[in-house]
């Protein structure tokens, strides 16, 4: 099998046995990027030189007999919302064009210390706001399954680079589904850890109380390996959990669901879900039953307020988090037209109008409204109470079920432009992923198959109680095994080659 199609765990084995070097593997990824990224546009910035230097360093350390991390030498792509010292970081926004951070996010420090060559920065909806990557200021990423369709969002670049075999691993961030929904529509795996499980230090914040970074991979085991590497306490993040990383790798390896109670959330299935997506979901559930799991039906009545609560809490935090982009200290500075001697205030307003895209402006204005005096209680205050109701629903559901499952996204990948003029229909993409962010619980998406009606990937979501992330890896890994057996290999084996026949 060519290097680019191997999983991270397989690549780690090849390096351990001396069958491949990190430089060879990294070069293979870089070659593939050169070959297909013109079409896919998963990357905003590629750092071939830096990646190869890191790869050579790992090869040297390995040759010297140093003890290395399991993923040492496996190249990785990093979503452009994560700051990287010396590498341009834009969060998909014009307002940060050309900005080179003077520091690394904590998770990037961990990647560097473990010796993972960083291939580059992946495309995304501007400031992670969107479900299609169409809101990137630098043009959309295309779905390798169908270049006329969206790769999901906001982390479309991180998911697409995996599906296009440009990278074996990627970092994503998930505020309302930005890791899981792109995974779902690209036939890849993505996990949002428990809130606080991975440090947020160095993630350009969208909504602080919802944001969480996590692994984007092609297999459940790879996700567990990467989760385990980037997870764990960070004293630079006050909301970081001071607890050991859950035993996710062990759970993924064991893949044991016998006796587990799998809860099907009534509110997250059926109506509103594409028939092919729903069908693959039901088959996947049957696979779990065959593997020895028990199915229970649960109801989470407050979930129907989740989308509304999310679109108040998130924009409120956005309006404050994005205030720092003001043309004073970094990033774009635009002088207003027709004003001779503009004030700082006028330059701020002109820059923010020119530098932010429509969706970002919409959310800032919406959040400014939700927090303003006189409306706070009705909007932000009510939304925060709904969060409590949703957390209570989860708590009750987890009394009778060990994990909860649903389709990840209600549809498969849709064509470009389909939902751009209708924000609400775009927001509906995250209907099943948002509750986990509101309550802080972990969620994982893996492919459940191709929908009959369009032949595009559908996703299966597993939610676990806070700090019980290992459960979703156990279930995901067990399901993945059975599905691979049924399909005769991974789903991604069927992705179009992207290389034009000569």
């Amino acid at each position: 099998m060519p290097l680019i199609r191997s999983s991270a765990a397989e690549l780690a084995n090849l390096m351990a046995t001396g069958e491949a070097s990190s430089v060879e593997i990294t070069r293979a990824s870089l070659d593939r990027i050169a070959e297909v990224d013109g079409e896919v546009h998963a990357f905003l910035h590629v750092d071939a030189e830096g990646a190869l230097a890191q790869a050579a360093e790992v090869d040297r350390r390995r040759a010297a007999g140093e003890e290395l991390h399991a993923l040492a030498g496996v190249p990785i792509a990093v979503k452009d919302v994560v700051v990287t010292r010396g590498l341009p970081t834009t969060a998909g926004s014009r307002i940060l064009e050309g900005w080179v951070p003077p520091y690394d996010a904590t998770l990037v420090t961990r990647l560097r210390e473990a010796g993972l060559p960083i291939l580059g920065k992946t495309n995304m909806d501007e400031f992670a706001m969107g479900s299609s990557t169409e809101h990137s200021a630098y043009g959309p990423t295309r779905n390798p399954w169908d270049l006329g369709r969206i790769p999901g969002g906001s982390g479309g670049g991180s998911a697409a680079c995996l599906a296009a075999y440009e990278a074996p691993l990627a970092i994503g961030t998930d505020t309302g589904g930005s890791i899981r929904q792109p995974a779902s529509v690209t036939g890849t795996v993505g996990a949002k850890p428990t809130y606080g499980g991975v440090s947020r230090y160095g993630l350009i914040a969208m909504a602080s109380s919802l944001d969480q970074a996590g692994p984007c991979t092609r297999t459940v085991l790879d996700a567990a390996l990467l989760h385990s590497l980037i997870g764990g306490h960070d004293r630079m993040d006050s909301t970081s959990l001071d607890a050991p990383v859950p035993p996710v790798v062990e759970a993924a390896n064991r893949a044991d669901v016998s006796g587990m109670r799998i809860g099907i959330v009534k509110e997250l299935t059926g109506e509103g879900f594409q028939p092919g997506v729903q069908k693959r979901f039901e088959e996947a559930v049957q696979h779990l039953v065959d593997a020895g799991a028990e199915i229970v039906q649960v109801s989470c009545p407050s979930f129907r307020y989740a989308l509304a609560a999310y679109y108040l809490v998130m924009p409120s935090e956005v309006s404050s988090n994005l205030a720092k982009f003001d043309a004073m200290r970094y990033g774009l500075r635009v002088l207003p037209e027709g004003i001779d001697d503009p004030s700082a205030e006028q330059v701020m307003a002109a820059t923010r109008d020119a530098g932010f895209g429509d969706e970002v402006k919409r959310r800032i204005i919406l959040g400014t409204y939700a927090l303003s005096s006189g409306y706070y209680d009705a909007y932000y205050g009510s939304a925060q109470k709904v969060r409590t109701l949703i957390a209570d629903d989860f708590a009750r559901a987890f009394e009778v079920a060990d994990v909860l499952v649903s389709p990840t996204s209600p549809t498969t990948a849709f064509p470009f432009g389909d939902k751009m003029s209708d924000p609400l229909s775009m927001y509906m993409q995250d209907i099943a992923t948002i509750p986990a962010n509101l309550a802080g619980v972990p969620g994982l998406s893996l492919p459940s198959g191709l929908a009959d009606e369009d032949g595009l990937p559908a996703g299966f979501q597993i939610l676990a109680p806070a700090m019980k992330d290992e459960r979703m890896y156990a279930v995901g890994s067990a399901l993945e095994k059975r599905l691979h057996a049924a399909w005769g290999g991974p789903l991604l084996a069927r992705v179009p080659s992207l290389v034009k026949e000569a």
Partner: protein
Amino acid sequence: MSTSTTDALMGYDEVIERFDPVMGLEVHVELGTATKMFCGCATTFGAEPNTQVCPVCLGLPGALPVVNAVGVESAIRIGLALNCQIAEWCRFARKNYFYPDMPKNFQTSQYDEPIAFNGFLDVELSDGSTYRVEIERAHMEEDTGKSLHVGGATGRIHGATHSLVDYNRAGIPLIEIVTKPMVGAGERAPEIARAYVATLRDLLKGLGVSDVKMEQGSMRCDVNLSLMAKGAEAFGTRSETKNVNSLRSVERAVRYEMCRHGALLAAGEKVVQETRHWHEDTGMTTAGREKSDAEDYRYFPEPDLVPVAPSREWVEELRAALPEPPAQRRKRLQTAYGFSDLEMRDVLNAGLLDLIEETVAAGGSPAAARKWWSGEIARRASAQGQDVPTYAAGLGLSPAAVVELEGMVTSGRLNDAMARQAWEGVLDGEGTPTQVADARGLQLNQDTGALEAAVDEVIAANPDVADKIRDGKVQAVGALIGQVMKAMKGQGDAAAARALILERLGQPS
């Protein structure tokens, strides 16, 4: 340069006659922590621009705050010293507004959940009365950067073409202490304002939480003031005079605003709710930003920080370890030392209380301590432009020296004049009092025979004076002692001479 024309002012007496002032004071204190409130950058004053900044305090994308534990502890100690209740659970909040010297365009502060609330501070006024200032709250927040306005006249914001921002100060911990509105202060309002700020400054200094240097901006005061007509119940419209940064200015600013409001109200005009700038040079305020309902800080709980929930045990530990409040300590020591009000005032003005207390602790008498730490050493210190404690520290002079000197007097080795000589020698760097006395040969003549002879001689030579003393005019004895001492060539024991004269002339000593 002031931007506005001179305000019409009403005479102060007329203001008092017609109106009641309502006053509120907001004091911002920079804590003396080693690092900033939410990051590990140093807080050294006067550092080169932008050398004490990091991703957090520069508000770089992705950075996150982490609370300084000592910042929280200091806030609680301040709250306790101000007799406040300490919140069992409270949060930080974001105060959202745009300003170039505020890196995140929100200030991390506290809103409806301050760490300390409902306290009071008793301040002493010049007439000896005490006024109780009610404290609304004390909360934690962070400072902003500093802007240098370029291109306009003398660095002012008006007329500047651009500004240069240094973020070294951004993120330094601040405690904002807010009083409740003070009603009924009447004509004493300016004095109360000043006394409150002075008392607060001493209190914070005593706590060791801040260097409280108003001239360096580590303590800043905003004065809110309104007038209401005599007999009215509703407060008038207030002005907020910002950054009044000396004790004298606080007093003047209150007075100025009272007179300005008085003139406006008397003329049937409205007081505009606005911020005012205080001008130290002219002693006037000028209009700043108008407060409109456009101002909407959109406070909400800071999602990047978790709640602060100080345990009651910890709070009680901190309370038990608080130093005695300065006013209480002053009162206690004055009583214990038997100082008159006048003596006490001199001691405080000269900053001698700590030295005296240490000297007493080392075995000296309060009177001797006060005597030796005032006088000659004070004269020399002021010639150097220093206060006594600084000057004494520079000489390596400790309370033990005063105790030693006093001991030499009480043991009878030195008389007062000799002790003064010995002290001068000490101040000249000649050594300890004993060493100086030895070197200079200072030693009372202990020969009682010689003293008796001298006394008898002097009584015989001054029959008139002796008669007066026999008749009970004991104060006349001074004249005879002087002559005895002269006869003894300065080495006599004046106290012994006095006792002997009185005995010879049949008077009780």
